[in-house]
């Protein structure tokens, strides 16, 4: 019998997750979700409009402005209300990153890997379109999508840069930094994931993420907060990177609450600092979202 690479990989990764305490099937799904754009409308106003179009929405209890789409007769990415920027399509767990960082109008914020801008527009809304929101991305094609999103959503407080944020001098230090790092992703939002990914990819991404983490700490002012997130379930890109950060930078982790579980403090037989439990994991079997990891880092 011939076993495909996809099946071998699937078993390999599912075995790893089992070792981390979760029996996943590899078939978990996340429902479509939208986030209301409070720069342009209120939840009540847009809910009334969408309900009149026979769209059934359910509020996500742990999100400020996030709703799961239970039923819709048309694509929510191509409605007049979407084009007007009254809402955005955004996966539920991914909304939790900017919500946890919770920037306000007094902050100077850096979004390090910003494109295509879902979290950037969300942070602009938290900031009430005030303060300064710097958004950087290295991929020019994706930066075009970011620019479109800022225009569509009515964002007025941003400065967008195209370039490599690890080597960039932006002329200021930031009170809040969001690093939603490029990562290996997960199978919930990418049906072909098991056929594409290997453990070598995970290690390669972890190296890139450490370079980005060092840059994030450099861009922060003392006492400033970094929100690190990935949509990867792999500890090398998450808890092990946080352990590395605590050993190599003057920083500590603040506790994150929410659905899901605390970050892991034992990974494949390796004991990590207890402080890592302040980070947070969305496991697809528990939260019915994609896999997601968050850590709130404060620079000393």
């Amino acid at each position: 019998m011939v076993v495909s690479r996809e099946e071998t990989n699937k078993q390999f990764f599912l075995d790893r997750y089992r070792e981390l305490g979760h029996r996943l099937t590899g078939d978990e799904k996340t429902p479509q979700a939208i986030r209301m754009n409070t720069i342009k409308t209120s939840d009540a106003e847009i809910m009334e409009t969408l309900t009149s179009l026979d769209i059934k929405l359910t509020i996500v209890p742990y999100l400020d402005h996030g709703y799961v789409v239970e039923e819709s007769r048309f694509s929510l990415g191509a409605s007049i209300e979407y084009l007007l920027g009254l809402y955005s399509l955004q996966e539920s767990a991914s909304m939790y990153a900017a919500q946890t960082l919770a920037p306000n109008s007094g902050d100077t914020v850096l979004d390090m890997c910003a494109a295509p801008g879902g979290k950037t527009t969300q942070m602009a809304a938290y900031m009430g379109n005030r303060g300064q929101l710097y958004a950087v991305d290295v991929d020019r094609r994706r930066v075009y999508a970011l620019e479109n999103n800022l225009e569509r959503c009515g964002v007025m407080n941003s400065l967008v840069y195209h370039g490599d944020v690890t080597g960039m001098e932006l002329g200021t230090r930031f009170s809040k930094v969001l690093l939603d790092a490029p990562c290996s992703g997960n199978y919930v939002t990418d049906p072909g994931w098991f056929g594409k990914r290997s453990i070598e990819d995970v290690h390669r991404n972890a190296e890139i993420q450490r370079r980005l983490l060092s840059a994030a700490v450099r861009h922060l002012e003392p006492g400033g907060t970094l929100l690190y997130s990935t949509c990867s379930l792999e500890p090398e890109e998450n808890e092990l990177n946080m352990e590395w950060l605590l050993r190599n930078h003057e920083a500590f982790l603040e506790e994150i609450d929410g659905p899901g579980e605390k970050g892991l403090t034992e990974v494949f037989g390796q004991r990590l600092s207890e402080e890592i439990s302040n980070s947070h994991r969305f496991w697809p079997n528990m939260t019915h979202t994609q896999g997601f990891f968050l850590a709130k880092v404060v620079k000393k």
Partner: protein
Amino acid sequence: MDPEVLMIDSKRFTLNQELKRRQFSRKGLVYAGTYLGWNKRLFEPGSPILQMLAAEENTRKVHLDRDTAWLFVCGRDVFEDNIERVESVLELGGHYLVMFDGRCIGYGRFETSAGIRVIRNLFDLGDFLRREDSD
């Protein structure tokens, strides 16, 4: 150049007071503050400037129902008969903001096409989706 307007390549932006106060690097900067539009052959306004104009009481506007508004954001012209309501009067050659549910979804010029009077579509918000395809 108008000091209130920041040019980045052919795009024009305006900055709010908080961004104006800040000394920021121009290296690698591609977008700043509020996008006004870009210089093609003529100046082409972006969505934010249209929303600002729509907030003015004395701008010329035509209002559409949902079905006609949807055809408009798909790039179609609007037949005079399908205009639900006009603010000011329709004059051939005049430019009008095209409104749906109190918000601006684009603009056009009132003209005659093959003997039929239409709002010729000059810009609509469906451009966001078309740009994603062409970027």
